[in-house]
C-alpha cells in the first residue's frame, strides 16, 4: 500500500487536533499503521498549529519529512503558504478560503500575502490544490466549530477509505447532540471537493 503523509495546519482554536485525531482513528480502523503528532506552542488559541498524520503499513517517525507530504490540509490561507514547502511530488493541497491576519499584520509591522502570492506558492509545491469555502459554510450551518469536520469531509475525498468508516469514527468521537450538524458539515466538505472536480 502506498503511504499517505498528511499535514493539517491552521490557527489554534480551529479544531485541528480533533480533526487529525479522527483522521488517525479512521486510518487505524481501515487497517493501517498510523502515527500522529501535533506541534503546538504555548497557550490555547491563536498560534500556528501543525498536525502530522502518517499512514502506512509500518510507520517509524511520527514527524513527516519536508518534501514528503502527500496531502496538505490548510484551515487558513497564510498557514497554507507557510507549510506548502512540506509538499512532495504529486501531492495535493486543500485550502480553506479563510484569512486570519496574525497580530503583527493588524499592528502594521508585517504584511499578509496577497491571494496571488499564496496561489503561486501552492503552484510551486503542490501537484494540485483545491480551495474550499469552509469557514463560510460552517457559519451558515450555524456553528463555526463544524469547520474541522467539513475539512475532514474534503480530505476523505482524496483517501481510499470508505465513507462508512469515516462516519463511524466521527460518531464515536463527537457527542450525540452536535453529531448531526457535524455530519452535514462532513458531507458539505465532500461536496466542495466534487465541485472542484474530485470524484
Amino acid at each position: 500500500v502506498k503511504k499517505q503523509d498528511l499535514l493539517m495546519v491552521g490557527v489554534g482554536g480551529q479544531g485541528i487536533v480533533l480533526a487529525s485525531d479522527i483522521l488517525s482513528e479512521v486510518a487505524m480502523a481501515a487497517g493501517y499503521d498510523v502515527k500522529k503528532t501535533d506541534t503546538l506552542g504555548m497557550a490555547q488559541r491563536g498560534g500556528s498549529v501543525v498536525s502530522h498524520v502518517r499512514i502506512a503499513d509500518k510507520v517509524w517517525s511520527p514527524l513527516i519529512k519536508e518534501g514528503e507530504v502527500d496531502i496538505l490540509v490548510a484551515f487558513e490561507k497564510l498557514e497554507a503558504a507557510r507549510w506548502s514547502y512540506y509538499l512532495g511530488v504529486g501531492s495535493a493541497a486543500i485550502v480553506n478560503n479563510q484569512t486570519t491576519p496574525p497580530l503583527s499584520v493588524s499592528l502594521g509591522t508585517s504584511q499578509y500575502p496577497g491571494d496571488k502570492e499564496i496561489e503561486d506558492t501552492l503552484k510551486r509545491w503542490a501537484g494540485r490544490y483545491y480551495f474550499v469555502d469552509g469557514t463560510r459554510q460552517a457559519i451558515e450551518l450555524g456553528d463555526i466549530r463544524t469547520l474541522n469536520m467539513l475539512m475532514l469531509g474534503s480530505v476523505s475525498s482524496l483517501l481510499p477509505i470508505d465513507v462508512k468508516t469515516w462516519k463511524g469514527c466521527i460518531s464515536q468521537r463527537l457527542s450525540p447532540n452536535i453529531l448531526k450538524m457535524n455530519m452535514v458539515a462532513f458531507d458539505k466538505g465532500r461536496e466542495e471537493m466534487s465541485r472542484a472536480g474530485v470524484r
Partner: protein
Amino acid sequence: MKKLLSGNEAFAFGAYHAGVMVAAAYPGTPSTEILESIAQFDEVYAEWSTNEKVAMELGMGAAYAGVRALVSMKQVGLNVASDPFMAASITGINGGLVVIVADDPGVFSTQNEQDTRHYAKLAKVPMLEPSDSQEAYDLMAVAFDLSEKFDTPVLVRSSTRISHSKSVVETNCKRNAVAKPAAFKHDVEKYVMLPVHVRLRRPVVEGRLVKLNAYADTFPGNQIIKGGKRLGVISSGVAYQYAREAFPKASFLKLGMTYPLPQKLLRDFASQVDRLIVIEELDPFLEDNIKAMGIEVAGKEFIPRIGELNTVIVEEAGYRTGLLAEPSRRKVSPPQGLPGRPPVLCGGCPHAGIFFVLNTIGQRSKLLDARGKSEEQGKLIITGDIGCYTLATYPPLRAMDTTACMGAGIGQALGMEKAGVEGKIVAVIGDSTFLHSGITGVVDAVYNKSGVTIIILDNGTTAMTGHQDHPGTGVSAKGKKTQKVELEKLVKGIGVEDVKVVDAFDMKAIRAAVRSSLENPELSVIIVRGTCSVRLRKRTGHRTVDIEKCDDCETCLRIGCPAIQKLDEQVYIDATLCAGDACTICEQLCPKKAIGPVTAGGGSK
C-alpha cells in the same frame, strides 16, 4: 485490544493495568495528560497536587505504605521535586514508585531545555525510555516490577514527541490484581534519614547500583536489531524512530533502559559492527557513558545537542559522516518573508485588561512602541511568571520584564527592591502558579517588610496546560467538588493588609486598583479575577466596529486581542473569536465609542 493512544494516555493505561493505586501530578506541558487520563479510573486515587514536590512526597508516602504509586511531571517539575526525589532514592520504597518526567527538546513550552537523564545518574536510580506509545504502555508494568525488585524509585523519561504523539497500542485490558492493602511497616533506619541512618543506607544504594548494572544486560527492552555490519546505531526514545527511518540498512542497539547501561551488551554490539554512532536527543548522555567504558563511538560531533531531532536532521548527519549517500532530490526550504504567527492571548482573555493598564500606567509603550519600534525604558518594572500571561511580554502589551521559573517573580521583585532599585516594582503571577510556589514569596514579603505590589491573575484554572483544576477552584482532579482555597483570605492570613479584588473586565476598577497600590508604599496585593474565555460555553453579543465613528486611532489594537484585526486599513472584529458580553474591554477603551454589540445596530461590517 488495539487503541490509538498518545504516549501520555499509554503511560496512564499501562500504570493502571500494572495496578497503580495512587497517582499525583502538577500540570506541565507535555506531561499533563498522564494524570488526566489516570484520573478516569475509579480504582485509582488521582490528584492534582499543589506542586511537583508535594506530588513526589505523596508518591513516596503511598509507596512507603506498600502500594504502587505514579508521579508525573514535566522536566522542570523534577527540579521542584528533586529534594524528595533524592530522598526517595536513599530510603528506597516498598510498593513501586514510578516517576515519569517529560522533557521538551525544541522548547515548545518550557523555560529551558534540560535533559532529565542526568537526574538518574545523580540519584543512582534506573531510567527507562519508551520510543512510542506501545512501549510507554509496556514499560509501566516493567517499571513497577523493577522498582519493587530493587527497592528504588524508577525514572521514566518521556519527551514532547513521545507524550504528544499517538500510535497504535495493543493493551491487555486487565488490571493487575492488587493483593496488598496499604500498610506501613515501622523501620526508622530505612525511613528516617538522620545522618547516622544515611550512613547505613549509602552502601545499600551503591550495592543496588551494582545489581542494577548486572540487570541492565538482561533487560528485555534493550535489544539488538541485526542489520548490516558496516554501521551500528545506538539509540533510545523517539530518536530511535528517526534513526530507523534514516538508516534502514544499519544494525541497531535499541536501549529501553538508559541508566545504568548494559555494559556487556554494548561491548558485544560494538564488536559486531565496523562503525558505531549514538543518536540521541539533547546532551551526549549515552555517548559520554559509553565512551567512559572505553568503547569508541561517535555522536554529538554529527548530531545536534540543541533542539528536537527529526529524520532529516539524522539523515544529514549520515551524509556528513559518509554513512549515507546524499540523494539528488529537490531542495526544500521554508518560504521567506511570511508573517509569523506566534501564540497570543485569546480573544476575551482576562489577562488582557490588567496588562493594558500596566502598559499604559507604566508608560511602557506609546502608540509607536506598540509596533515594537522604541527601546525606551518604561517607568514600571514588572517581574513575571509562568503561564499564558507570559505572552504579555510581546507587543503590543510589552508588560513583562522577567520570567524564570514557577513563582520566581515575587522573589525577584523583592530582590530588586532590596537592592535599591528606584520606584515601585510589580510582581505578576497566575492563580495556579501562585498556589504552586508564590505563597512563600508573599510570606517573605510580609516578614521582610517589602513594599512591592503583587498582582494575582485569577482566571480560575490552570489555563496554559489545558484547564486543570487547582486548590483555588474547589474542584478535584476527579471533577468532584471539594474545599476551595480562597486567595484573598490566604494572603490576608499571611499578613498583607492592602488586598484588593477587581473584575478582570472592568477597566476603570483595574486602573483605580493599580494606581492606589502604586501610591501605597506598603506591600499590596491585587487579585484580578475573571473567567478564562476558552471556558466560556455561551458567547453572546460579540462586538463590532462602527466604521463611521472609528477614526483609526488603533487604541483597540493595543489590547493585543486576536479578534480585533486590521486588514486593508480597516479595523474589524472577528465574530468567531470575540468573547462578546463576557469581555467588552475594547468597547470600554474606544475613545470614539465606535465599538458596541452587534445587535445594537452599531455594526456595519
